């Protein structure tokens, strides 16, 4: 399958395009949620509403990203694993996942964490900022892969 993708004329760019579109939906909507947690986007809308309502579309986008990303990996696994930004990308993804789980299962469950109105607690704003920065780093590392193919 990896060889078929690598050798097909348009399979690779089509998968790359799907990867980017899924990323725009998943990470894009996630960044909007993060900006809401930081209090700079849709400040009048209760944060719980933004968080809960966008979640299915963020997860749907991630499903597309993971499927396309896995197929892209199969097609150039030997090149990817020696590229320095590649392990960093996964390291930042892991940190972003830990941050998301901590927010979901610890911070968001505190009674005072997500008030309907008014300023959000520092822990919520920090979780939003951490998510924003970590996903930005994931994208930066991902885009750097073709430009830094191996350690110097």
């Amino acid at each position, binding site marked *: 399958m990896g060889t078929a993708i690598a050798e097909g004329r348009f399979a690779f760019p089509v998968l790359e395009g799907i990867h980017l579109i899924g990323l725009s939906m998943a990470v894009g909507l996630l960044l909007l949620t993060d900006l809401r947690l930081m209090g700079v986007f849709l400040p009048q809308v209760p944060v719980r509403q933004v968080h809960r309502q966008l979640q299915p*579309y963020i997860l749907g986008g991630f499903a597309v990203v993971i499927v396309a990303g896995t197929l892209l990996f199969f097609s150039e696994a030997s090149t990817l694993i020696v590229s320095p930004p590649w392990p960093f990308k996964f390291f930042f993804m892991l940190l972003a996942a830990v941050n998301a789980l901590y927010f979901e299962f610890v911070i968001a469950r505190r009674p005072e964490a997500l008030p309907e109105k008014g300023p959000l607690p520092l822990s919520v704003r920090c979780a939003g900022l951490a998510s924003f920065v970590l996903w930005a780093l994931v994208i930066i590392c991902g885009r750097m892969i073709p430009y830094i193919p191996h350690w110097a």
Partner: protein
Amino acid sequence: MSLVKLLNWVQTSRFAHGIAESNHLLIAFLQVVHVFGFIFLLAPLFLVGLRLYRLVLTNYPIEQVVKQGRKLSLFGLSMTLSSGLVMFLSAPLHYYYNWAFDTKMGLLVLAIVLYVAQFLCVAALDRRSPALARLGISMSLLSWIAVCMAGRAIGFV
């Protein structure tokens, strides 16, 4: 001066040489800005689309969603257009003879026209004809997806 002569003049200019001969990480940086711009451009459009289809934020006025999304989306558009322009100016003839690039530019014009129409009148259109507003946002999103697909093909044709 013909277009090819103009592009040839740009390609042999000090500016183009400066970019083309600079560290390859400059192009990588421009690519990062280009991708971030695309994400910031598209995410608010997705949000407006979901709101128009009554899937999210249904008790929040569409005008507010559009107004809030517009600032971020325009910021993304300016990022993606400016980084794309600098990359183009580094090797304009190379892009000029690439059919995927020509396709991308045609689609980009269509996408920008639909984009401007969306942000200018989608809220009013949603009050008069929600079906038409949904069609408009769907066309706008599809046009950007087509721009993205054509863009990814540039390096492969």
